[in-house]
């Protein structure tokens, strides 16, 4: 469990980071908090030639609420977001989900953008971003583009990021008046990746229910405000559409069951605030 040799570049600015990405492309990886990357390197599941450390970049830190979005820059840790004084009112879903991410020790190192870029199907932050319908800001040496979460996540550990790009910022939509949010997760132990995680946003136009831990990426259903049998039917349809799989911890049937029962629980709770 020692990584293969790599070169280490410490970027002091975002410009330096993307310049290095432009030079090394797919041979390079951004190192932010390292909570997934270092384990992957130590097990030699990946052997990038260059690591570009953005941990100490001055211009990639910061959380800002601006034009309907909470913008979280690339070097912001999960603990940094969790401790944001207005997180509960700005993006209540995040306030509910963040304590489920690993443990406080890992949240102190792990970054928000890093989790989004890694795109683990069982991770909480991609689920929240997809459910809220947020965006990812991708930056390369010469360009910057903003991409909707649903286009950004393309599969298990796969995103639309090109090798020259880094996730510079993620944008979580700010909560609107009258919106309700709910998050519920079942994992084997506290802090584990979700067996099933559900995130929901209910507003005037209907409900968005995001499911993590089941399909190859977070999947979001958009429904009008369903109730009773119609809701159960929709949940059952969703449970099957996710293509749940067995693993050593939980059966596919168990995952479907949780989608149905916890989905119902979550939505009922939001209906009766």
């Amino acid at each position, binding site marked *: 469990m020692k990584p293969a040799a790599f070169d280490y570049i410490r970027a002091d600015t975002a410009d330096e980071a993307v310049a290095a990405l432009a030079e090394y492309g797919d041979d390079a990886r951004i190192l932010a908090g390292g909570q997934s990357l270092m384990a992957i390197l130590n097990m030699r599941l990946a052997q990038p030639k260059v690591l570009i450390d953005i941990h100490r970049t001055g211009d990639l830190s910061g959380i800002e609420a601006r034009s309907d979005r909470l913008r979280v820059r690339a070097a912001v840790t999960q603990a940094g977001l969790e401790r944001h004084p207005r997180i509960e009112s700005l993006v209540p879903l995040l306030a509910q989900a963040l304590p489920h991410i690993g443990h406080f020790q890992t949240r102190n190192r792990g970054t928000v953008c890093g989790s989004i870029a890694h795109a683990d199907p069982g991770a909480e932050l991609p689920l929240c971003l997809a459910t809220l319908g947020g965006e990812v800001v991708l930056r390369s040496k010469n360009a910057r583009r903003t991409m909707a979460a649903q286009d950004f996540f393309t599969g298990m550990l*796969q995103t639309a990021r090109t090798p020259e790009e880094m996730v510079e910022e993620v944008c979580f939509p700010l909560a609107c008046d009258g919106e309700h949010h709910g998050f519920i997760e079942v994992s084997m132990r506290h802090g584990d990746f979700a067996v099933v995680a559900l995130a929901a946003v209910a507003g005037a136009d209907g409900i968005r229910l995001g499911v993590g831990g089941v399909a190859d990426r977070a999947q979001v259903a958009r429904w009008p405000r369903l109730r009773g049998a119609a809701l159960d039917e929709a949940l059952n349809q969703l449970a099957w559409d996710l293509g749940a799989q067995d693993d050593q911890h939980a059966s596919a049937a168990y995952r479907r*069951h949780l989608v149905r029962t916890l989905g119902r629980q979550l939505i009922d709770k939001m209906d009766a605030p």
Partner: protein
Amino acid sequence: MVNPPNPFASEAAPVPSTRWTGLPVERREDAALLTGTGRFADDLGVLPDTLHAAFVRSPHAHARVNGIDASAALASAGVRAVLTGEDVKRWGAPFVVGVKAPMQHWCLALDKVRYVGEPVALVVAENRYLAEDAADLVRVEYAPLPVTVDIEHAAANGAPLLHDAVGSNVISDRSFVYGDPDAAFAAAPHRVRLKVRYPRNSCTPIEGFVAVAEHLAGDDGYDVLSNFMGPFSLHAVMALALKVTSNKLRLRMPRDSGGSFGVKQAIFPYLVAICLASRKAGAPVKWVEDRLEHLVAATSATGRVSTIEAAVERDGRILALAYDQLDDVGGYLRAPEPATFYRMHGCLTGAYDVQHLRVRNRVVVTNKTPAGLVRGFGGPQVYFALERLINRIAVELNLDPVGVYLRNFVPRNAFPYRAPAGALIDSGDYQGALELASVEGGLADLRKRRDQARAEGRLYGIGFAAIVEPSISSMGYITTVMSREARAKAGPKSGAIATATVGVDPLGGVNVSVASVPQGQGHITVLTQVVADVFGLRPGDIAVDVELDTRKDAWSVASGNYSSRFAGAVAGAAHLAAIRLRAKLAVIAAAQFGCHEGDIVFENARVFPRSEPARAVAFTRMASGPHWAPALLPPGVEPGLRETAFWTPEVLAAPDEQDRINTSAAYGFVFDICGLEIDRATGKVRVDRYVTTHDAGTLLNPALADGQIRGGFAQGLGAALMEQFAYAPDGAFLSGTFADYLVPTAMDVPEPVIVHMQTPSPFTPLGAKGLGEGNNMSTPACIANAIADALGPAVDPESIVLPMTPSKILALIGMPDPPPAGRARSDTPRRPGSGQALVMSGAVELVASPEAVFAVLLDPAALASVIPGCHELKAVGENRYAAELTLGIGLVKARYAAEVALSEIDPPRSLRLAGRGIGSLGAIEGSGKVKLVPAGSFTRLEYEYEVAVSGKIAAVGGRMLEGAARVILDQLFERLGRRALRRKEGGPGERAGFWQRLLRVLRMTR
């Protein structure tokens, strides 16, 4: 140090009234540990030219090894040597083991590998990084063989054989009869029978194995520093495997350990490998096991299938017991196995007064990591069967479980009690312990809570477990596996000697050393208490050395830290050595005071004649004198103030003619009560209250005792609810990280209610017994009984299979899984826990004719462009190719040297496309039938694939394996379709909009 009065002090302790022993004295070890100045094996300095080792391990569960090419590794930077089976054969010998069978186990695989993770070669380089770089370059040619991972499958006729020369996977099959079980079963009004399985699990210490070995010049043998913990009978096993006399294998053990729980016993084959690596490299070699290596290949508790049956009276009284046990020892029977069976043999009747017993023990090899010592050793397996059976007796006869216990316990006036298989159970009061547990643990309140919960429709259960906890093993118990005739030939064995040395230095300081090798339990603390009491000193006056050096210290075959032998045996030996030294000092002091030696008092760091306390002199002055003025020694007193005590329990003997064996010197008792609730929505278990009552004889330090109980309880809870080494049916190991091998964290472990009683052992010097393993034995069964109680009598008792994960529990509660509206149920049910036997089938529609698709598959250049990550495809035969592939998802990528083959070719209708590859991340194999069905302008491609993934990637990536395999199959067919279209149209098939749509069609269904 503040010492509150000891609430647990026993009036009946056989030692003189003491001041420190029995008090919850603070741990002396912690100042160093908490300030980062511990002395762990990896922290100790090594010689400047020390090299570092990395193992090359098998990705296959079962394969022939046809060759090893280390040339690329040897050419790699910083590499000094590569050790292979050839070297091991030249310099070493296979390990000896307690069962005579033509089965060879070497420290590196020779002709065959038998489990995933088995060491095949060892690279020695200037640092660990370079060694791992080179380990990835060692090319091993494997020919995979059929695999057997299930115990019963492996034991059955026709299973793939692990050791051909044995002719069976059942390495030992012994039956025992005590009393007249047949008559008892024939006469009994009830027979209660249960088949249970105990999973493979472990206790996973935070520190893995560490070894530093040096091959000494000339024929001086080997010097080894390691965190080996015994039993030191294995020293002989290692010396024989190294082909040196035992005095040429020096083992040194450091002071501190990052835990063992028995597990570090399994370092011994690695010590032999590192010794031989040092010999080959001509320099000292160091190896520090990493977490992945530890989980994959260090050791495991045996998995067990037990069929247990009781002959029972109407009132629940058990007349006879019958066990039929199959133990899964993994790929090799490794010393001291099959000790998991035989450690418990004498006390298989548990806490119950049952005189008729039948036992059949079968030792079975499977394609899994070899088994060995894991805290509780043998107890969890036996008590899971026995205590689940007690639960079933209560349920089937409609009796209160408490009544069943009280009716069957060994009576309190029957101790020492001879159990039918030979255990001489030294002391106890089982009825008293149950009553204490019920009162202190609030059983009546738990029952009320259960009633209330059930009235509200909630799932609440109460479970019990009663276990006899053996401590201080007889090394001779393992010979019970031999026939009487074989035992007679080999000579009677009953090794159990404990050693301790107490000396006084020239300023009167007291020094203690023991052959114990503590693993974090606080031996130093307890020894200072015990020895301080003998000399009338304070614990802080006593220096304790727990490092061990087989060249310098007193040790024997039973030395080491296992079978809960410290409190009963080792602390007792230290007490005896101190008593002996005190007696000598008393003779010296009596001469000086002019009184009888029996009148000398050692108290408050002073020595004086009982009748004349005013003449007291400081202990240090009295005790240092003999160093400075030996001429003043009284006549007949030899110079030197150092005593070594060798203590062996008189009650231990070799197995007798009737196969009776007193397996341990002392037997503690644990009675547990658990109240728990199951969440109907998620199947999660919440332990409401856990009461654990221990009688471990005299407690030497109740605070340390409670620490042991909490730790054992956490591990027992883990075994009950989460922990398991999972294997796929093809033998791939799936629990290579702590994300998949789930150990409960502080968040998951409730605080147990700990209740003590003390019935001193008449057979140990201090009246103490072991207590560190009890909850590993009792808690899995107790929680399982509570879960069974919560789920109710309708649930099949044999479906209570550990670990009881939420998914399993919910399946037992029953979860409706209605098919989606308008669709038949489409998934094929799989055996739960079957893990990564990936079978994928589905269909995709390709915009090309079957002929065009077929043409791509048969054209090597086109095929190369279709196979994902294919760098090179060289024909090596008709429709057979050698390929270099890079497969992966996201940033995770692995390079494989692969073979691709087309067969069953029926153009343009169907063929089989198969491939297998091997690389540093493991082995993959996939084979699938592909059918092409014309469908208008499309071709419908139907496939049915089986994919097997093994080695590192399976061990650490289980959660994503199936998804990743789908991604890769997806890529394969998507590229096939695109290529066929391009061929047909003679132009680039880059019609993005159309392809976007097609990709959506390509969604796989199972």
